[in-house]
């Protein structure tokens, strides 16, 4: 069964409901109308562009183009996460391989052993799955990196005392890694525990609306959640490990110049 297309009138009806949101802002004198409008325009333009490039990628369906696209998405995600984490772009060369290894390994594993599309590098599988892995890994890695470096910076005396007693950077930083890791993992655990009870994930809902039987959609959703979980774990831990080469000097000191 194919998904029933939404007509232009239907899209107009969807946008019309935003009037309620603007009315609420106006009634409550919240001065965010301009920002909301801007965000809505951006969302529309971005998704329209996604529609255009996905159509082109799916039509082309060239394995080399697909891999190149994933690489480009990795670079953009890496740039965004460093910008959001309060760290300088000098760390790009260290966090980029972390993201690439995590996404590449998990994507290859799931495509080859779980989804098994034909051809193997089918754009319809590789591009959307890579996008989901990257989006989640980016936000988790951002939180973990930010928490890690600000925790060490906030307890510089405690960290330095371990270095002064002969600990390696890895040994001295271990408790801060663990704290950052826990902070990054907590929201994901909470959301995983309520999937299906409180909300239905977007991908699964989309598949059901697109005509897939619910159980097929649920199998895909479970596989995707596991893939996201493993990729985000790998990406955030590798990003910390790799970035420590740049983040600390040869004597074990935190390089304060990595912060913006």
């Amino acid at each position, binding site marked *: 069964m194919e998904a029933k297309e939404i007509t232009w009138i239907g899209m107009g009806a969807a946008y019309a409901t935003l009037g309620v949101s603007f009315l609420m802002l106006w009634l409550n004198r919240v001065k965010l109308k301009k920002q909301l409008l801007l965000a809505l325009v951006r969302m529309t333009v971005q998704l329209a562009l996604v529609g255009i490039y996905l159509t082109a990628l799916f039509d082309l369906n060239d394995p080399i183009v697909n891999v190149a696209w994933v690489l480009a998405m990795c670079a953009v995600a890496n740039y965004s996460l460093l910008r959001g984490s309060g760290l300088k772009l000098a760390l790009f060369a260290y966090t980029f391989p972390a993201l690439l290894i995590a996404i590449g390994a998990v994507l290859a594993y799931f495509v080859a052993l779980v989804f098994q599309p034909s051809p193997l590098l089918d754009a319809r599988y590789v591009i959307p799955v890579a996008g989901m892995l990257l989006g989640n890994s980016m936000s988790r890695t951002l939180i973990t990196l930010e928490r890690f470096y600000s925790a060490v910076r906030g307890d510089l005396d405690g960290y330095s005392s371990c270095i*002064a007693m002969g600990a*390696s950077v890895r040994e001295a930083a271990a408790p801060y890694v663990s704290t950052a890791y826990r902070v990054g993992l907590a929201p994901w655990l909470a959301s995983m525990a309520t999937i299906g009870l409180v909300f239905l994930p977007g991908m699964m809902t989309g598949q059901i609306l697109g005509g897939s039987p619910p159980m097929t959609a649920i199998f895909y959703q479970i596989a995707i959640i596991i893939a996201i979980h493993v990729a985000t774990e790998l990406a955030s831990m590798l990003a910390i490990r790799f970035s420590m080469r740049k983040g600390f000097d040869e*004597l074990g000191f935190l390089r304060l110049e990595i912060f913006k």
Partner: protein
Amino acid sequence: MITLEDIDLDLGGKPILRGIGFQVRSGDKAVIHGESGSGKTSLLKLLIGLHRPSRGRVTIDGAELTGKAIHGIRGRTFYMPQEVRPIGEETAREFVDFVFGFAVARALAPSGDELLEALERLRLAPELLEARMSELSGGERQRMGLVRGLLLRRELMLLDEVTSAVDEENKRLIVEHLLGLEGVTIVAVTHDPLFVERASLRVELRAGELVRAERPGGG
């Protein structure tokens, strides 16, 4: 022996220490004292390479504190900052054990009896080991930090106002205990009159400059 020769220290473009020079002998119980902001903590950090002098040099047993030499010296040193801050949800036992996970200290991991003895010396109840560090008072956290120091048995102890949050009675006990550690060189930043009075070397700073470095009774 620790030797400081004509040390200047600038941090963030600001002069912190100027023209500091003195010697700490093996086994000394040295104190660095002076008013707040006189550069005491910065001076202590210089002794273990946590700051690098802008001019002059620091040597420990003849080895300058640069590059690889620092790693060797750090393996023989216990350093404790003034504030012992909990990092997460760790218990006091995990806090003490943490340093014995370092490759340089793994062989020194204490037995249960040694740990209890160290707690007793610092008048800490064994039950506190199972409490979270965040639940302990500032003084108890400082004493847990010193438990690490006693168990590590390092030949050089650098202590930065490590009794500042401890009550008077326990402060006296800790100072007496530290002064009695044989074969251990101690350099302590402190305001404690007993520690200053009984020290074998008193280094006084004012506004980043050395007022005096004296040994009571000469020597």
